[in-house]
Structures are given as structure tokens and as C-alpha cells.
């Protein structure tokens, strides 16, 4: 019996730690049980897709988004002036696209179970809710409803739905209101100093995408908000 007790005590920590599983202690808050700290100021390091992210691509420049023919028709009809006039100048700043924009992000804890993500370009706010139901009835919004969960040992998974239709690219590449966005947040050290946040984004939208649109974006951590520069959305 003594051997069993000793062995059990020895193995309990291993049993409690299950790699890859959500493994969250329901009693602890998301903030208290966070395996990684993604709070702080993060700046997009635009090393990929420069011409799609730093400037508004020219009409018809859709590479390499796996668009359906219907999506192409919608994008070909893109009219930024009409979007501005209709108050839709933020359509390219929705949850399916915003982390790919050349922006700064400020991530904070809104409360013990909600991460808040602010962008300076477009001045958008996302709420990543832990322990939340996967869908909430209510009005669709640009940033949708995001459900977050820690993925042990060191990652954050976020699934966003209930979106208003928007643009994957500023030149009118569309996603529909039925799009679902799955994101993974990971952090890593940069050799020589600093920290990088990696956000892998998978946009699933059978109406406008032939396959899930998968991108991964890098952000460098900044010491403070001295370069924070709130700038309104533009459709052009």
C-alpha cells in the first residue's frame, strides 16, 4: 500500500500536466492560469506580403488568396468611395483581417477572464473571452464573438464567429458573415534580445474561399506605448 501511495504522489504532477490538452482548472481564472503572457505592446514586423499590408493593393491584385469565383466578382466590384459614403470604411479591419494589418496592438486583461486587444490602425477593439459559450445571440459585429482557451503547455487558441462581412484585404477581397476565424497565439524569444508574438490565423469561409485562408504574422514586443499612434480606418 505504501508503494502505491508513493507512486501515486510521484505521478500526480505528470498526470495533471497533459500536453496539448486544454487542461484548464475551472476554478482558476484565465488570468491566474495563463501559461504565457501575451500582454503588452506589439508591433507588426511586416516581412511577408508587404504590398498587401502596408499599402492598399491595386484593384484585381488578389494573389495568393484562394478565392471562389463569387468572391472574385465581389472584389472586382470593390468601390472604396462607396464604402466611405456608406460608413463602411472599416470593412478591412474586422477580426478575419486585422491581425494581418501593419498595425500596433495593445493586449491587456479587461477582466480576469477576458483579454482585450486594441489596434492603433483602425482603432479597433477585440475581446477574447475565456469560459464563454461558443456562440452568443445578438448583432453581428466587425470583431465578432471570440472564445479563447489556453492550450497547454504554452499557447492560446481563439475562435471567432458571429462576424459582420468584411474584407481580407484592403482592396475588397471579401469574407462573408458566416466566416469562422481560428487563431493560435505563440510567443518566442528573439536571439540577441526581445520577444516575438506569432499569430497563426485560419479563416474558414466556404462562400468566398476555396480552402481555409491560412496566414501567420509576427509581432515584436515593445517596451511601452510611446509609438502608439491611433489612426482611423480608411477605405482607400
Amino acid at each position, binding site marked *: *500500500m505504501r*508503494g*502505491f501511495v*508513493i*507512486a*501515486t504522489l510521484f*505521478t500526480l504532477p*505528470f*498526470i495533471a500536466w497533459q*500536453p*496539448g490538452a486544454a487542461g484548464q482548472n475551472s476554478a482558476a481564472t484565465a488570468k491566474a492560469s495563463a501559461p504565457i503572457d501575451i500582454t503588452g505592446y506589439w*508591433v*507588426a*514586423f*511586416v*516581412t*511577408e*506580403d*508587404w*504590398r*498587401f499590408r*502596408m*499599402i492598399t*493593393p*491595386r484593384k484585381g*491584385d488578389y*494573389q*495568393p*488568396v*484562394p478565392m471562389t469565383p463569387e468572391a472574385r466578382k465581389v472584389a472586382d466590384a470593390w468601390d472604396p468611395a462607396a464604402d466611405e459614403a456608406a460608413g463602411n470604411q472599416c470593412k478591412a479591419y474586422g477580426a478575419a483581417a486585422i491581425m494581418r494589418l*501593419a*498595425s*500596433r496592438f495593445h493586449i491587456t486583461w479587461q477582466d480576469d477572464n477576458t483579454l482585450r486587444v486594441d489596434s*492603433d*490602425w483602425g482603432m479597433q477593439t477585440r475581446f477574447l473571452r475565456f469560459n464563454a459559450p461558443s456562440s452568443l445571440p445578438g448583432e453581428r459585429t466587425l470583431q465578432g464573438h471570440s472564445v479563447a482557451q489556453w*492550450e497547454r*503547455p*504554452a*499557447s492560446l*487558441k481563439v475562435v471567432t464567429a458571429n462576424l459582420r462581412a468584411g474584407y481580407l484585404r484592403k482592396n475588397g477581397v471579401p469574407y462573408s458573415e458566416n466566416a469562422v476565424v481560428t487563431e*493560435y497565439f*505563440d510567443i*518566442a524569444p*528573439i*536571439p*540577441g534580445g526581445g520577444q*516575438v508574438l*506569432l499569430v*497563426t490565423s*485560419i479563416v474558414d469561409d466556404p462562400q468566398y474561399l476555396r480552402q*481555409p*485562408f*491560412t*496566414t*501567420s*504574422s*509576427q509581432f*515584436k514586443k515593445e517596451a511601452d506605448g510611446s*509609438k502608439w*499612434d491611433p489612426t482611423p480606418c480608411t477605405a482607400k
Partner: protein
Amino acid sequence: MGSNAMHCKMSWSAVAVLCLVACRMAFAQVELTGSWTPRNHEFLTGDGLPVDFTGIPLSEEGRIRALSYSQSQLEMVEHQCQGWPAFYLVQGPFGLRIWNETDPLKGNVISYTIGGWEDRAPMTIWMDGRPHPSEYALHTRSGFTTGKWEGNTLVTYTTHMKAGFLRKTGAPSSDEAATTMRFYRHDDILTILEIIEDPIYLAEPWILSRSFQLSATPQPPVGPPCITAYEGSVGPTAPHYLPEKNPWVDEMTTKYGVPRDAAVGKPETLYPEYRKKIP
């Protein structure tokens, strides 16, 4: 059953549980082996225009080398295989085939191999704790790579790569370049974060990433090796441009409206504040 027998049986049960858990711990990392098909939804290699160095934080020396490059250099035997350093596996358009070698007695992973494609050679990731060789040791296209697990993330470090390209249109990499890669698996998506350091041609580490989807269709484990051949067309000098007279320097501006500073890879163009300097 007597109490001694019961005690003995429970002790053995405990030992069995302990062994099972210990075995699980020994193989606690995620599975990376298999075939991974690329999700080519990002441009990591540029547009293919001769002067598209957007997104690369080139040093001044790197920019001068890049702008002096002529693709006619590929006629030269010594330059024909330089397009495939180890880090090109993240930038290139192909999928990955990953397999491992295990110790036949202990069962631990000795190495992973990432298969080659096209002219890129396979890459071996040594997991057995061996050190990197002397800095004077042989440099190869695929370099020398070691790896270790940090939680569920495989972290690799590559040195000893021959000089080649950061981007195949001429942005150079030196034989002092080193690459750290981190392999993140989330469900059936594998994302590789790549951090390239080059003290000669980069002003700061170049950070890239790319995702792959687990595939039931096998990716090829090897491609045809890069074999050089004399093409008989090179004159007495190496094809090149004078950096300030590269005739393609404004192609990105003409075709896509990309400012010249961004097209030639000035580091400040990689940060959002540069947007406000764009006319």
C-alpha cells in the same frame, strides 16, 4: 489472498502506472513526422521581379550586393546551386516530409530529417545533444542543425550554411548566417517560425513564418539534387549591375505602387510608422 500478497500486487500496480506515465513523459512532445502540404497563402519569396526585396531588413552591404546581382550569374557554375540554403524550406512553395531516426535500444529520437525537394537538399536535425562543429568546418547548402524540445515546440538551430540567397532574386546570405526555427503544431496545422541572423547582410534578424497542413498524400522525401553544369555562355566577367544603375529598381513602383525604399529592403519600411511616409 493474504495482506502481503495484496500489498505486493498493489505495489506492482503502482510501478506499472509509474512506468506508463514515465514512458508518456519520454515521448511527451507532439508528433511532427509525416507529410505536410503547404498553405501557400502568403508571399515569402517576393513577386519574382528582379528587385523585390520588400520585407527584408537588409544592411547597407546587403542592399549593395542585392542591387548588383544579375540573374545571368546563374550561368556560372559556382552560383548555380546557391538558391537553396536551409532556411528556404520555409520560404519555398513546396510541402514537407518529416521522418525520424530512433535509437533501436532506447527508443529516443536521434534525429529528424526534413526531406528535400527540387534542388534543396534534405535537412537533418540532430536531437542527440551533439555540439555544432568548429566554425572552420565544412559549410554546406543545408548546414548543420541541432534541435531540442521546449514543451511542445521543436526548436532548431542551423549554422554552417554556404553563402546563398535570402531571396532568390539576389538578396544575399553569407556563410556566417544562422537560423533558429520553431515548429508549432496546432491540431493539423504546423507553423514554422524562422528567425534568420546574418551579421553581414541583415541589419536585424529577419523573422518569417509559414503554415503547413497535415496530409495523407505523401510528400516526396528527396528531390533531384542540384547539379552544376557549364553552360558555355559566360564571358570573362561575372554578370552584374552597378548597384546605382540596376535597371529594374523601379519595377515594384511601376507595377504595384511600392516605394523604392521598400522595394530595396530598407529596415525602417518593415514597421507600421513607415505607412505615413508613403505618398
